[in-house]
């Protein structure tokens, strides 16, 4: 089971009223390479991966939920006090028509999240390489998001999340090495 901890993993500060940025940040909330996809991908793959790396998928999957909450905090702070006019001007008119200022699992273009974004092939190498690729794609997305805001506080939180992708990528690479090395068990039935 999971127990909730009533704090963010990293302080989220947003110092510029910029609802436009919320529309872009939602990519990491409900996009193909976003934090929801990451969390669900790893926590689902953990059932069918060698025991030696289950713990890693379990723990990275859990950390991704902390990142999802950070992105939600950013979007929430950027939109909670915005007027209808401000949301429309920020390109969030269609979102408003559908959701008011509620968060929704969608990408920056408004496409709803789908399980088709994530794969579980049952082959440990295929799945771990998907995970490595997912981390690099999320890192790239964070870079483009950092490029699009001049709010240094928001950049600070995004840089933290970008670095986490880099560390996760290293861990998944190590998981591949662990699986490759595990020769003595290959013929025990």
């Amino acid at each position: 089971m999971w127990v909730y901890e009533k704090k963010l993993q990293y302080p989220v500060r947003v110092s510029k009223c910029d609802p436009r940025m919320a529309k872009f940040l939602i990519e990491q909330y409900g996009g193909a390479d976003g934090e929801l996809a990451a969390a669900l991908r790893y926590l689902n793959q953990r059932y069918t991966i060698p025991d030696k790396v289950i713990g890693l998928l379990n723990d990275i999957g859990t950390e991704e939920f902390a990142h999802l909450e950070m992105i939600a905090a950013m979007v929430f702070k950027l939109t909670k006090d915005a007027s209808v006019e401000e949301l429309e001007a920020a390109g969030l008119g269609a979102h408003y028509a559908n959701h008011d200022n509620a968060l929704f699992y969608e990408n920056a273009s408004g496409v709803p999240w789908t399980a088709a974004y994530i794969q579980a092939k049952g082959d440990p190498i295929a799945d771990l390489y998907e995970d490595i690729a997912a981390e690099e794609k999320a890192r790239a997305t964070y870079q483009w998001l950092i490029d699009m805001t001049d709010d240094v506080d928001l950049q600070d939180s995004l840089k933290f999340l970008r670095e986490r992708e880099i560390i996760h990528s290293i861990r998944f690479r190590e998981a591949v090495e662990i699986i490759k090395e595990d020769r003595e068990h290959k013929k025990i039935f």
Partner: protein
Amino acid sequence: MKQNPEERAYPLFHSPFDPCPPKHYKTYVVPVNQYVVFQPAGLPQFSPAEALKHGTLWPSLYSPYTSRKFKGE
């Protein structure tokens, strides 16, 4: 601005018929994780406060990134 050591660049072909002012090169980042196969034990560590700030416990795994907007790209 100090050059980011992780940054790479490739030249862009420019046709006389391209409508926009030419960009001569495009940059991308190759983060430190691309050169780590398996993290060795005993790497030097940040203090807890510095680790949180950098997003990693280990200085040698830290990858800096500067907004392209700040760099005028």
